[in-house]
């Protein structure tokens, strides 16, 4: 019961943080840019000044007493609603799903920001999730091996690998992977793995004609499975390998370091000696007694790693031409599509804060000494 109270408290805190963030982002964008930028997602090029002014008023950016659109653009005194007033209207709009039209070149004004974002978001999520999976599946065992073979060869090798992991520039690592697996390892004239994109038909192990899939969840890999289209599923999976590995490499390095040091710390503890003295097998001692304690510090980093992964997709998507929102964010930056960027920031923040909350609860369950 107390756990639920704790969770609710943290949830409320989470909402508070999100509000704070929205204010921060709002001020950063609307406060530092001329007010007509706020209009852009809601007007079409063919609108005349009167129409624009009325939209500006409906957004609570221009006051009702503002005489003309030109006066508004010139920011004449008495024409612009103070920022906090703009904020409340903005908040009402976004919470009801009104994010305006996208400004992205080619589709400006024809598609809503929300749709543009969420049609590409599944690709980013797939990438981030796979990256997270790789980070955990490789990073944690690497740290364990390091700690249990302390100062012997596996430890040295693992440490070099993990040092390389978190020292390497991700874009460079991605490029190296591409050069090796697409340029240099070639079979029948095509690279072993795809160089870019979320689905490629021109790699050695790709199917040349994967067909189409239905749309169930918007996540290509899941939809492919749901449609029973195995070639598509495989091609999509293969295309994920290099980008996800590039995304994960820094986290692998960081995670294995943390696990290594906390495992070594745990293995030094007195309860390990008692466990051994009870005649327990080494595997039991390491995985039950030491690891349970050693994973606690690693769990606390999970929230940070999520933030890192969700930010890192931007670079990865550029290197691998991945059709997710990270790629789009840069285009949005070029055309000053503030709404898109705000949406991206807030959605990412919700995910990160939610994961932090989950991690806190998980930690409280794992460590019985924690009081809440």
């Amino acid at each position, binding site marked *: 019961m107390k756990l639920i109270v704790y969770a609710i408290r943290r949830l409320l805190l989470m909402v508070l943080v999100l509000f704070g963030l929205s204010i921060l982002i709002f001020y950063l964008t609307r406060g530092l840019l001329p007010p007509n930028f706020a209009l852009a997602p809601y007007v079409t090029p063919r609108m005349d000044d009167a129409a624009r002014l009325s939209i500006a008023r409906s957004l609570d950016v221009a006051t009702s007493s503002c005489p003309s659109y030109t006066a508004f653009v010139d920011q004449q005194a008495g024409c612009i609603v103070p920022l906090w007033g703009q904020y409340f209207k903005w908040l009402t709009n976004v919470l009801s799903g009104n994010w305006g039209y996208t400004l992205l070149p080619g589709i400006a004004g024809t598609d809503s920001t929300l749709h543009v974002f969420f049609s590409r978001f599944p690709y980013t999520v797939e990438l981030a999730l796979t990256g997270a999976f790789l980070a955990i599946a490789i990073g944690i065992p690497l740290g364990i091996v390091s700690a249990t073979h302390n100062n012997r060869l596996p430890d040295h090798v693992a440490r070099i690998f993990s040092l390389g992991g978190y020292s390497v520039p991700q874009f460079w690592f991605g490029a190296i992977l591409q050069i090796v697996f697409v340029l240099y390892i070639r079979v029948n004239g095509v690279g072993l793995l795809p160089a870019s994109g979320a689905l490629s038909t021109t790699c050695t192990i790709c199917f040349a004609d994967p067909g189409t899939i239905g749309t169930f969840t918007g996540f290509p890999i899941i939809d492919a499975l749901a449609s029973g289209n195995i070639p598509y599923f495989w091609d999509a999976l293969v295309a994920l390998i290099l980008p996800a590995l590039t995304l994960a490499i820094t986290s692998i390095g960081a995670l294995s370091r943390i696990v290594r040091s906390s495992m070594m710390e745990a293995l030094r503890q007195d*309860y390990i000696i*008692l*466990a051994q*003295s*009870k*005649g327990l097998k080494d595997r*039991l001692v390491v995985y039950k007694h030491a690891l349970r304690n050693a994973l606690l510090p690693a769990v606390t980093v999970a929230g940070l790693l999520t933030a890192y992964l969700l930010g890192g997709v931007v670079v990865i998507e550029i290197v691998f031409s991945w059709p997710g929102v990270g790629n789009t964010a840069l285009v949005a930056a070029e055309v000053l599509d503030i709404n898109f960027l705000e949406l991206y920031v807030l959605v990412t923040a919700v995910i990160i804060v939610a994961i932090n909350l989950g991690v806190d609860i998980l930690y409280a369950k794992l460590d*019985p000494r924690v009081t809440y």
Partner: protein
Amino acid sequence: MTAREEAGPILKISDLRVTFHTYAGDVKALNGVDLTVRKGEVLGLVGESGCGKSVTSLAVAGLLPPNAELESGTITLAGADILKMSREEIRQKRLTDIAMVFQDPMTYLNPVLTVGSQLLEIITQEPKLFLPALVRHRLEEIGPEGKEAPALAAERERLLSISRGGRPGRKEVERLARQYVVSTLRQVRLPDPEKVLDMYPFELSGGMRQRVMIAMALVRRPKLLLADEMTTALDVTVQAQILQLLRELRKEIDASIVLITHDLAVVAEVCDRVAVMYAGNIVELAGVEELYSDPLHPYTKGLLASIPRVDSARTRQVSIGGSVPNLLFPPSGCRFHPRCPKAFGKCPQVKPPLVEVKPGHLVACLLYEE
């Protein structure tokens, strides 16, 4: 000689030398330890901090750290040479024959696992090994035939069929193990054992935690119990309770106990024989009363003299001059000679062997060499 003394020793340590390789140098921790533990006895092992008592017990259990080097000597447990065993064989011995109880139950119990988890894992790791004991125990609990409720009668039938070679399911084994563990907790006088199983170490008091550690040892029905400063971390009243428990337990269990401590009072309460250790050597070994009434080694005499006594006319604290030697550069010959009031010519040159000077009373001192 009693029947007990006739049986061979359960533990025999001969000329054990252990050196620790540290970055500061080589610490010559054990300098030829000779010790025997008889079946069923409680042997006290006393000495100051750093004299090598813990190292000795860890060596017996095969738990020395990686930087320890066993230079020479033998350790024989019930006839088997421990030092020649593989890691796996020693581990088996720890599971069935040798049990250790340590000093501070707070740090020696895993804080994130329940007491039950840490007790049951001993059994569930290799259930076949413990199954006969579990079955036998439960049968004893149920009681003799004819006196019990019908449900228990069915259970007895089931247990008998298992003992004749039947294969119990995993749930059955867990249930039996749990019953066994609960009764062991009762054996160490823990109130409400069922509840304790689901508690975490930090929820228990110091005395209760120590009883849990003792229970962990008893569960295995060891031949040899090594209690390393078992009561040192407890306050005096709890200490008395634990010692009382030990006294009661030794009638119930069939193990030999080595009680390692620096507290002479503790030794006087529970032990049959006492070994005094100094700087990596056993310097005196005798029955408890014999040692206290007629200490032979100068170190023992100094130790006993320094115990503050209410009924003594002395008003000043007597202590042994000098300080414990640095085992990186231990004294030559008899390691006690720099502090010994009776040291003479040969002492710095010859390490005195442990010899029987009176029946049942051994000393390692050149004063008694003939």
